[in-house]
């Protein structure tokens, strides 16, 4: 350590932290943790270029920096705005932010089918969590919602555009995995849809990860679809010696049967180690895996509510909270 990086000070909801220059407001908030973290539907730290689109992470900057303490006139997307020394940010403490966020959630939901009971993502859906926390209990949208046919992207992945919130995460995933722009957005406005060239499947060892990055039920695993509600399954950390990926996965089990395999997500729903298609779709025998133990799911969601871990639960179930 020859030279120490000069850290800068940022205050979010009255909590101060020192971070490295070039950190985004969102990631500074995640370093503080807890209530000050804005929700993020499109930002994904391991996907280059992602973020800024969903507008749920809007925050108010009430002082730009130590040198120039003027407030920023507009709300800014915390995922794509870097902190400055002495910046003061308001998230939960700003009524303007809460109001704008409520508006964004309402707008995200107007074209999203409200049929969580039949959606495969229910229980681990970021939009469901977001709507639970910020949404109004009824919709003011009285028109027909947009609808699309379901499409198979290859043998294992189902695309149901009706549920898509156009976060572009899968687009950035495919951009990182493939050389060409093979998976992108077609059309524009509220008619835009995720698509590959004429329903092509993408020929890539890691393309199954688009399922994990999808915050909603638009991209789902065909080997698991409708086999079980996710909260009836037991998540277990497991590993295998895979030559292509790290082999560190979560097995979602029904009894002794492996219902599905996913990568390990952190508490913000982000995968740090992508897994290969082989591990995800083909290794469904117990003998393929070395089980490490129950998976701790640290999300404010149905899957972490009624949890079975060996140790006593550290968090209160959702129902008692209210």
């Amino acid at each position: 350590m020859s030279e120490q990086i000069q850290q800068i000070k940022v205050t979010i909801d009255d909590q101060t932290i020192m971070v490295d220059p070039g950190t985004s407001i969102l990631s500074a908030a995640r370093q503080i943790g807890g209530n000050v973290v804005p929700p993020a539907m499109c930002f994904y730290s391991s996907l280059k270029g992602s973020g800024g689109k969903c507008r749920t992470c809007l925050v108010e900057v009430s002082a730009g920096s130590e040198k120039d303490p003027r407030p920023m006139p507009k709300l800014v997307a915390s995922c794509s705005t870097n902190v400055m020394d002495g910046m003061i940010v308001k998230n939960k403490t700003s009524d303007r932010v809460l109001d704008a966020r409520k508006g964004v959630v309402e707008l995200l939901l107007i074209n999203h089918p409200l049929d969580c009971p039949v959606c495969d993502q229910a229980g681990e859906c970021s939009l469901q969590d977001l709507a639970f926390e910020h949404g109004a209990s009824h919709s003011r949208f009285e028109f027909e919602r947009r609808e699309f046919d379901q499409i198979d992207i290859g043998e294992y992945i189902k695309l149901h555009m009706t549920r898509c919130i156009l976060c572009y995460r899968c687009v950035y995933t495919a951009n990182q995995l493939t050389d060409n722009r093979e998976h992108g957005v077609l059309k524009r406005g509220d008619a835009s849809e995720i698509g590959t060239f004429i329903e092509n499947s993408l020929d890539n060892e890691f393309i199954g990860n688009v399922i994990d990055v999808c915050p909603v039920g638009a991209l789902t695993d065909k080997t698991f679809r409708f086999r079980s509600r996710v909260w009836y399954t037991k998540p277990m950390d497991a590993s295998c010696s895979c030559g292509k990926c790290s082999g560190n996965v979560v097995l979602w089990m029904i009894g002794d049967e492996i219902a599905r395999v996913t990568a390990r997500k952190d508490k913000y729903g982000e995968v740090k180690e992508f897994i290969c298609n082989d591990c995800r779709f083909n290794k469904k025998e117990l003998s393929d895996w070395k089980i490490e133990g129950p998976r701790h799911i640290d999300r404010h969601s149905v899957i972490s509510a009624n949890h079975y871990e060996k140790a006593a639960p550290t968090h209160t179930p959702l129902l008692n909270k209210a």
Partner: protein
Amino acid sequence: MSRKLLLNNVHVEGIHTYDVYRKSGGYAAVEKALKSMTPEEVVEEVKKSGLRGRGGAGFPTGMKWSFIAKPEGVPRHFLCNADESEPGTFKDRYLMEKIPHLLIEGMILSSFALGCEQSYIYIRGEYMYVLRILEKAIAEAYQNGWLGKNIKGSGFNLELSVSPGAGAYICGEETAMIESLEGKRGNPRMKPPFPAIQGLWQRPTVVNNVETICAVVPIVNEGGEAYAGVGIGRSAGTKLISASGNINKPGVYEIEMGITVEEFIYGDQYCGGIKNGKKLKACVPGGSSVPILPHYLVCKTAEGTDRLMSYESLSEGGFATGSMLGSGGFIVYDEDQCIVRNTWNFARFYHHESCGQCSPCREGTGWMEKVLHRLEYGHGKIEDIDLLWDIQRKIEGNTICPLGDAAAWPVAAAIRHFREEFEWHVKEPNTCMTRNYGLVTEKVFDKVNA
């Protein structure tokens, strides 16, 4: 008396050809700049002139130019934004169609000032015939040594080409335009980084509107201070206004900034009054994105002073009683026009043109259009008006690019000034299908006076 700086030669026979343009004093500015000025001096002249961006936002051009990063060994780019798609605006088309060489001359000057050796004109896809005119003019400029290597022995090289868009309004947003030029989907980028630091192919880039670039020619010819002397206050120079709607003489007019709106609407050398002797009902002074003004706020501001055609005067009173000069798309409505229908039409446009990248604009524009459609066709409810107000409030300021604001402002202004007409559409569902609400009643005058 008004001075013309851009359109003074527009009626000369054959001005679109190189020979006639050259004979009428064309390319003198390039000659002057290349022979006797440094790039910094050109930037200085533009700064002195007080020229402001003519594309809508009105940002000072000299300042924009001085922001461009100049890292060693990295090429810079200069782009002309000819993606003119705002409903009500058609001034750039007129300029490019009539005097294409003026734009090329401006491009050479601006590229010289910024040290760019590869410049592009990004033109709207629907202007395909204008693209042909421009291409012909560029070929003529190459033949006569105004473009290419070592222009007129000055050592300055410039390659210029025209690129057509594919019909998306959003590509008029500068970062979306850059994406489109790179061959990608025209989605606006996050800012920062601004194009002046990382633009086209991650290189420093400046994007200017056609009219702004053309205005550089008289600035270099006559000097920045002379240009600053035209116009009024911080609105220096002349502005092209594309006048349309219920007026006797629609068309493109070059005005000296600072003439009164009244003179512009009723003056014989401009719009020539409202058609068929009708009364003025409302006016959109700067293209569909800017707030609509009711008749009692068009010629006078809320304080009762004359409203002038300038950046400051048109925005006097903020959005409560003012509007914006915008891109100069001046749309006039007479007493027979329906404001709800007009607002629906604008909302339909923004719904169609939203890129769909960020959620408030993608979902909100469609919702507003549907609610407005319902109101216009007599199926609306009285709560719809508040609902619309709420939706526009949730879009405005929360989006990546200004398209969200542009979609929200016209709806907000229509409700602000013409709420009675919206309510009438709800109360008289059958009548509103056959007859229009007409002029705002005298009651409104009383309200204003009180």
